[in-house]
């Protein structure tokens, strides 16, 4: 196998080539997108037979899908009943799975998925992405959320069904916590200087139809000195965001921004803040639009109140951590135009000394 390659290399180096360091052709070849090249037939007989088996299976499944779709059409026309809706949902689920399994074994589909050329309008890619999310991304999110107590503190424990990722631009993620797809791992530390501008929110939802979501960025670790506890602060609130499997970006143009983006600003003296971005589905399966007026909502509204008042269902979650930096002072001065608070512990009182600093007297002079 290696012998022909050696011969080729020797041939190239020996040929009389013009003395140019790079040719236009070679640069174009390197920069070209990889395209799928089907494996040649006739080389491996088992492979040829495998393709036949897969094609037969696909044909069978497509025929099955046709019959199920006919049944579904009949069901939809039939008289409404309580059992009918569940039956329709179950049948739709079956059709989805058959559509996915019909194409999943094809080598071209597998190559496209591995190389990121995913067309979410096809059932097979939605299925594969869903599985990938369940197996790879979800365990990490769950582990980080429980480890850093995001779930009991902000909202009760739940299983995310939608993948949310934040992009603060190039250079915002330290190299160690950067994932293969270019986003940061849930729970990573980000620098305050890199999160001043609004991030791009990328959502991988696995449903075909368009649903409305509410996006909220909450900081649950703002100190509340009067009550000797912590309070929540809403940094960002957008409602009526239309999202689907093919519509993955949170665009402000199609949605209503209730609270504009406030850059994270963990004050000096506090421990790390967990800035959590939540994606909540709006009522009636995401079909209802919500109207929020400024009088109802403020930056101090808690997430629990928001969800219970507007009947929101949290479906996706991600968070990052931040600690005070000199850039936070800059944010307070320029963006918030407030005096920067500095928190610290209470001064230590020595119980053995009195107010004047003298040792406490055990006996009194009679």
């Amino acid at each position, binding site marked *: 196998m290696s012998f022909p390659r050696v011969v080729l290399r020797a041939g190239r180096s020996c040929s009389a080539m013009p003395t140019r360091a790079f040719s236009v052709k070679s640069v174009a070849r390197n920069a070209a997108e990889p395209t799928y*090249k089907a*494996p*040649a037939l006739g*080389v*491996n007989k*088992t*492979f040829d*037979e*495998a*393709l036949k*088996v*897969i094609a037969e*299976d696909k044909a069978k499944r497509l025929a099955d899908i046709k019959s199920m779709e006919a049944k579904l059409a009949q069901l939809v026309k039939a008289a409404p009943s309580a059992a009918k809706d569940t039956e329709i949902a179950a049948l739709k689920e079956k059709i989805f799975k058959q559509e996915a399994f019909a194409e999943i*074994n094809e*080598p071209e589909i*597998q*190559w496209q998925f591995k190389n990121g050329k995913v067309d979410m309008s096809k059932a097979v890619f939605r299925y594969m992405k869903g599985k990938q999310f369940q197996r790879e991304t979800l365990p990490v999110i769950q582990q980080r959320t429980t480890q850093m107590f995001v779930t009991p503190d902000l909202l009760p424990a739940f299983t995310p069904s939608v993948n949310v990722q934040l992009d603060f631009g190039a250079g915002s993620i330290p190299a160690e916590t950067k994932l293969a797809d270019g986003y940061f791992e849930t729970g990573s530390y980000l620098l305050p200087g890199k999160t001043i501008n609004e991030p791009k929110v990328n959502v991988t939802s696995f449903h075909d139809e368009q649903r409305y979501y509410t996006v909220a960025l909450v900081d649950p670790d703002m100190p509340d000195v009067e009550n000797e506890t912590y309070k929540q602060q809403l940094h960002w609130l957008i409602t009526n965001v239309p999202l689907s499997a093919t519509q993955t970006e949170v665009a402000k143009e199609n949605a209503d921004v209730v609270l504009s983006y406030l850059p994270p600003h963990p004050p000096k003296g506090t421990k790390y803040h967990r800035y959590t971005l939540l994606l909540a589905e709006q009522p009636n399966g995401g079909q209802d639009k919500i109207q929020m007026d400024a009088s109802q909502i403020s930056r101090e509204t808690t997430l629990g109140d928001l969800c219970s008042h507007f009947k929101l269902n949290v479906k996706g979650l991600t968070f990052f951590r931040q600690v005070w930096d000199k850039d936070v002072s800059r944010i307070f001065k320029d963006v918030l135009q407030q005096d920067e608070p500095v928190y610290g512990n209470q001064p230590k009182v020595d119980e053995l000394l009195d107010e004047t600093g003298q040792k406490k007297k055990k006996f009194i002079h009679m």
Partner: protein
Amino acid sequence: MSSPFARSALKANTLMRAGGAPMKKSGGTSLNGDARNDLIKKVLFDAPARPPVRLSPEEMTRHETIERAWKLVRQQQKQEQTEGLARKFEMMRKANAELEATSAQLFKHSQTKERHAVFPRQLRTLTDTPPKQIWNYRQPAAATPATKA
């Protein structure tokens, strides 16, 4: 070239000679005079490590496609098996239901088992020199203890 094989064989040889075993022919490092032990030791200690299997992307695609197709075939076989079993069970269930509707006594008899069944005592022990008449077909059935009582 002192492989573990050669070293251990030599040690075994010296031990044997010290213990009083007779000297073997020169060049023989076989333990107990058995040449097969040499081969075993050669395979265990001197066999080279096999090179890892390297597949090009095209070959990898072929391999994965073959694996998927094989899984599909096994899935289809299992599905056929399960469907066959389900059909058989359904036929049996229907038959039992029909019997129940037909006759209660026959149905009860079909569903219950003889709890006090015993080894058939009329069984004849086999012999090397059997008699001319093996079984008397005209003999009436012997009374069993169950029927007696």
